[in-house]
């Protein structure tokens, strides 16, 4: 009886979304990650988010690199398109895919190693180009797949399983994103789906690069005393600065919050993002002040979560490049490959 697949039988009372699908229709294969891995919780949140957005699974593209995070797209949306790229190179592949077909929905799954070590340059340029992509960093502070060495996001003073202390300063993906001009930056925790699911939904709906750093404890190599990315440490140090509700295409704003308690952000596609419980002195629409606030929090050992910065006015990659609206796959051959005369004319223009 070794390792059974999740039985297909489902709760008869499971609700259905606008497409007539249940959550179960958004699942993937059985996880082969360690039992209790935070990544599996993020997988469940992604399933919930896409189910809630009423997106048809076959119109979604999931991409990843290498590492424990690289494995996770297998575990959700088995009907979606998938691409598992080389280590740290997923942002480039995603950029190409988004460029070729803007009608699909893209989700990239990466880890702290994949994004902040080997793939840091790739990530930086995807942010800079503002590729229309939900980019999730499953951040556990260790290289789990190679037995738990400190990663580039490990905090100073954090202890490895055998007691060794990390002395190198971490790269914080949120501060990195803010400094590179990311237009949607959030942080969450795998153990808090109530916060994570609406953030993921808002990230999908955001037009441009949506970076979500998710603290995702590694139960095998980084969930012990002395770790700063364990379940208990994260829960003890977590401060929610904004609590996001994603409201899909809401016609009007219901005034259910006191002024000052909530901030509404109209998304490009008409959806609404309502941020409530906003910490005093924090404004997620002001990049510079957000940067200052978060770096202060980091210095004090706080894990600040929620939607930390959003800018719906920035141009994303297609608008900047002036690319064709129609997916390349749907273009008539003559348009896609207009012939040598057209090429000559183009080259003539550069002389």
């Amino acid at each position, binding site marked *: 009886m070794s390792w059974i697949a*999740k*039985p297909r039988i489902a*709760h008869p*009372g499971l609700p259905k979304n606008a497409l007539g699908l249940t959550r179960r229709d958004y699942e993937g294969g059985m996880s082969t990650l*360690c039992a209790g891995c*935070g990544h599996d*919780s993020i997988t469940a949140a992604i399933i919930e988010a896409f189910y809630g957005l009423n997106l048809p699974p076959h119109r979604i593209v999931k991409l990843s690199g290498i590492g424990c995070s690289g494995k996770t797209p297998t575990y959700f949306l088995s009907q979606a398109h998938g691409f598992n790229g080389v280590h740290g190179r997923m942002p480039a592949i995603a950029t190409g895919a988004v460029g070729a077909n803007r009608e699909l929905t893209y989700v990239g799954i990466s880890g702290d190693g994949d994004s902040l070590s080997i793939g840091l340059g790739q990530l930086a340029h995807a942010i800079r180009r503002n590729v229309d992509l939900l980019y999730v960093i499953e951040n556990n502070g260790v290289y789990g797949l190679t037995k738990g060495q400190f990663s580039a996001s490990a905090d100073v003073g954090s202890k490895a399983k055998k007691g060794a202390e990390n002395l190198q300063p971490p790269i914080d993906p949120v501060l990195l994103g803010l400094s590179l001009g990311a237009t949607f930056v959030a942080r969450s925790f795998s153990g808090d789906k109530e916060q994570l699911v609406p953030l993921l939904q808002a990230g999908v709906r955001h037009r441009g690069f949506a970076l979500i750093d998710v603290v995702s404890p590694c139960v095998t190599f980084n969930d012990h005393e002395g770790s700063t990315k364990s379940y208990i440490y994260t829960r003890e140090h977590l401060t929610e600065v904004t609590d996001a509700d994603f409201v899909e295409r809401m016609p009007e704003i219901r005034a259910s919050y006191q002024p000052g308690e909530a901030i509404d952000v109209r998304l490009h596609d008409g959806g609404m993002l309502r941020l409530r419980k906003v910490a005093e002195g924090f404004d997620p629409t002001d990049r510079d002040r957000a940067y200052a606030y978060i770096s202060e929090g980091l210095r004090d050992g706080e894990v600040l979560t929620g939607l930390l910065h959003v800018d719906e006015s920035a141009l994303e990659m297609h608008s900047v490049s002036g690319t064709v609206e129609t997916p390349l796959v749907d273009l008539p051959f003559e348009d896609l490959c207009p012939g040598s005369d057209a090429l000559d004319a183009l080259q003539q223009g550069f002389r």
Partner: protein
Amino acid sequence: MKPTDVSDPQYYHKVVDCQWGCPAHTNVPQYIRLIAQGKYTEAYMLNRDSNVFPGILGRTCDRPCEPACRRTRLDGEPVAICRLKRVASDLRGDIEDLLPRIPTQKNGRRVACVGSGPASLTVANDLLPLGYEVTIFEKQDRPGGLMWSNIPQFRLPPAVLKEEIDYILDMGVDLRLNTPVSSMQALLDGEMGDWDAIFVGSGAPRGKNLEIEGRYDSERIHIGIDWLESVAFGHIDRIEDRVLVIGVGNTAMDCCRTAMRIGGTDVKVMARKSREHFKASPWELEDAEEEKVEVLENHSPTRFVIEDGELVGMDFELVDWHEGEDGRLRKEVKGNRIIPCDTVILAIGQETAFPWIERDIGIEFNEWDEPLVDKATFQCTREGVFFGGDAAWGPENIIWAVEHGHQAAISIHQYCQDLPIGDRPPYGMNLVSRKMGLHEWSYSNDYDEAQRQKMRHVQLEQRLQELTVEVEEGFDLQQTLNEVERCLNCDVQTHFTTNLCIECDACVDICPLNCLTIAPNGDEEELRGRLSAPAVNLAQDLYVSENLPQTARVMVKDEDLCIHCGLCAERCPTAAWDMRQYDLEIPYAGLEAGARHPDRVGVLAGSDR
């Protein structure tokens, strides 16, 4: 909600729906597991512990376990529990050596049982191993009560019946056949022997009559249970062509099917109400219709039609039923119809009858002339006199009679030791982990999508030719293998240890039936509304943990649809969830909970893969 107390044996007991539904609390999942391993003898003996007559019940049980079966709520059809019981009985080896040893030195206590049906036999089964001398008085010339006289042989072969009755008689019952007890006073006064206790298991032998015009103008109007008895004892072996059976309970089914076998060619079952109100078990109704019995609904009998002293038909009102504001059904008469027939069998119910119990000897009767019997102790208002089976509160079924027998035996044993009979011995339980390795459990935990196996029946022509041809052929090996895998192992409990939980959500995420939720605590009604999936089945409990260590939320499990696949425990990094086999320890007379099988734990833990 308060944290659930799983140390109370009844909490996990309730999760095992079949065992909870069974009056005798037969350990169904474990005996199905034993059958799956080919351990038919062990499966039979496990059954026998609680229900005493696995072979008989494997064919005739009313199966309260099956509508209770969790599988019904998942794919619409319960596990064929009853049929599997028969497999264990049919394929078992010799069990004589496994039966309890009867002491040669008796304890000096003598018990008289009136009637030799399943209740009395169970009392004997439980008391003889303790050294009691048990005497059974039976008015007929063979033992078994209604199991012999009212259940036709095509449903229960005489050999099966005899074998299981003999197991008990051979323990040393003093069986007095052809010995009706005609006076309780005489029995009490020592005219038939001296007794320390008396058990009345004389059944509900009086068939209800239908006092309408023409009732006594023909000899071709029979009372169902009496008629079945006459057939069983060979006094009747023919019936006329056209037969009307009045009533639509299980006795009616036995009457109409018997009639089809001894000459009836046009047999109709007449029901006053519509199909959804029929009392017969669905499978018995199905079998009758398969045998070309016609079932007519909404026909209310008004008179027997007699011409020239001969029964020629029966007059019925054609009725519709409407539910009144008080919830009771009221009939609307739409006309009438005379249905010609040669014979009528009345199968409209039966009741207890105690013309032989004097009313001035301290045994009190209620306004319906039923004895007052205590629901827990089975003692009537006279000390030392106990009732059980149909004799206690009217017609039930065999499995209830067996449970009454067990409980009455406990009372008799307490009574004979001068212990208060109201102090019922407690139930116990055993919980043993089935974890074998990182992802390995020592039970068949994968959900099998097999559909309920269909019972094969003997060809229609062949079965109608003779009264004694058993209709059901039993499951073959492949059917058995398919059916055992349908069992959801509800006895392998999801056992939670709160202080180990790190709230990683792995169990909540993996559960295929969305049974689990980690949430702030609340009132039950409110909590049921905000779980991973709506918990609408109020008959099924919510398990609620203590406050979790990290966030003080609680782990909630809706027991309703759990398929016991063990994935929650498999994905749990700290073994806060574990799959533990639950064994309800049932007390019997002179045997504390668990005493019958002190080695059971070892047997369970190491037995199957």
